[in-house]
């Protein structure tokens, strides 16, 4: 599987970009001089309502669109602006999605994970983060070709979509690596879900060729359950899940490993300590 294909943002990205440069040419001919970054950003926010300045900027920078937009926004060529904003909208829609499998992508997953961990800490509800890795995927690709590899990934994605609840999130976060976010699920409940997922995957199999040969594939799952105790961020959660995944691989693959994790305690949960409070209240 080539990286280029994986990072593609939507089917017609090329098309969009070429339309953009067309628009840009129209606009550029209409305006003299140039404007600063900050003016661009403000104009951006105006257009891309619903996105914060930083979000808009990051998004545009990632797509190398900032300059083009600038020219348009200054031109007051409104039909062109509207076309441009429609293009942006579709890019935004696609930015959360993994192109190959239709699951969410890594960017989306990391975003929602951060928010979920905050909720977990605030309301003390458990949350489980899972990393799932297809066992010996390279071998499948090498033996049967990439298109069959892609089918494995798509079939597996279908199983994930089927087996998790509407409130959970499934994302493809790497070549043959997936992540699940099980909201409100503690260790026991997650274990049940994940065992079921593992089994479904192991039983799925893909038939190919004229003789109807079937290849089977398995996956290893590593999970970390956080119960809202201590400070925890998304990166650490993924690291914990990754460690569990490593254990699952070590123990022979096609397995589920879960650990319950806590974060370091915040040093100053209350800004004002008891001594200080006592002093302020009574001198």
């Amino acid at each position, binding site marked *: 599987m080539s990286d280029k294909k994986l990072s593609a943002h939507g089917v017609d990205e090329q098309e969009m970009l070429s339309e953009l440069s067309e628009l840009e040419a129209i606009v550029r001919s209409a305006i003299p001089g140039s404007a*600063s*970054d*900050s*003016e661009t*950003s*403000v*104009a951006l926010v*105006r257009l891309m309502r619903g996105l*914060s*300045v*930083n979000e808009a*900027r990051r998004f545009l920078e990632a797509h190398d669109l900032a300059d083009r937009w600038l020219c348009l926004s200054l031109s007051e060529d409104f039909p062109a602006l509207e076309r441009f904003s429609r293009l942006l909208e579709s890019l935004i829609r696609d930015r959360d999605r993994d192109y190959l499998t239709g699951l969410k992508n890594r960017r989306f997953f990391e975003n929602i994970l951060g928010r979920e961990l905050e909720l977990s800490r605030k309301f003390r509800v458990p949350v489980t983060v899972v990393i799932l890795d297809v066992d010996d995927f390279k071998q499948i690709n090498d033996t049967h070709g990439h298109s069959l590899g892609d089918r494995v990934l798509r079939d597996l994605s279908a199983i994930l979509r089927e087996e998790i609840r509407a409130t959970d999130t499934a994302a493809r976060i790497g070549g043959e690596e997936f992540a699940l976010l099980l909201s409100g699920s503690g260790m026991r409940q997650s274990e049940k879900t994940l065992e079921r997922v593992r089994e479904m995957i192991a039983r799925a199999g893909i038939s190919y060729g004229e003789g109807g040969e079937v290849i089977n594939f398995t996956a290893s799952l590593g999970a970390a359950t956080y119960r809202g105790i201590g400070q925890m961020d998304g990166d650490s959660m993924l690291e914990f899940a990754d460690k569990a995944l490593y254990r699952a691989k070590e123990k022979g693959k096609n397995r589920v490993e879960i650990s319950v994790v806590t974060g370091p305690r915040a040093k100053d949960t209350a*800004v*004002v*300590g008891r*001594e*200080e*409070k006592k*002093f*302020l*209240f009574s*001198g």
Partner: protein
Amino acid sequence: MSIMSGKGGVGKTNLTLNLAYALYENYKSAILMDCDLGLANLDVLLGISPEKNMQDLLQGEAEAGEIVCALEKNGLDLLPAASGVPELVELDEDLQGVLLEKLNKLFSRYEFLFLDLGAGINNAVLSFARMTHERIVVITPEPTSLTDSYALIKVLNSKYGLNHFYLLVNMVDSDREAKTGFERMKVACEKFLGVTCHFLGAVHNDPNLPLAVRDQKPFIKNYPDSRASRDIRIIADRILALRGAKAEAIAQNPVLSWGNDNIY
């Protein structure tokens, strides 16, 4: 200077307005910058609404002078929250830099700039507080006001190393009450944080105050002889003296800047 408090409802906005008005009475020019996202904004309090905002300023569609509202002729102006002040701190650094530059040019026309900050400890409050030359923390004698304001000072100290503050005790019934409140804060800040607090003054409870709010006018204008008005004038005199003493440092530093926390 920024005016802030750990707890809401301590009369910050009114104090800010009246202090600025007292300075204006002394033939000093002052501008108020309303940094509070809350409902009890100065523009609401005074029944005015701005025509242009920060966006217009950034896009070159307005001059800095156009986004302010005159409260009094020749020297008492307001930069209303509605013009986008509270959102300023949410912008990225480049954008903030551009705006600050434009605003500083505007502010340098005045002798005093007051930032009316929202209550509590949030990013906006912290960011604005560190930008000004001086910080006034408004407290009332209530223990909850003391602890909340103490928390604010503690965070500003630990986060930005700010280590001196002016305290203003509002809504007191007696001088003794003001002194007790101030002393507790001062000693706690020294003892636990190594932070110095200076006494800026106390303002007594005043039956005329609610009436002034209803009239949408600074109360020292409408009730010049009331106790609270006299208190405010004493504080304004102190601020004048302070400015005189620090004139050099003030002149050498930008009005609002990230580096202002270290100028003294």
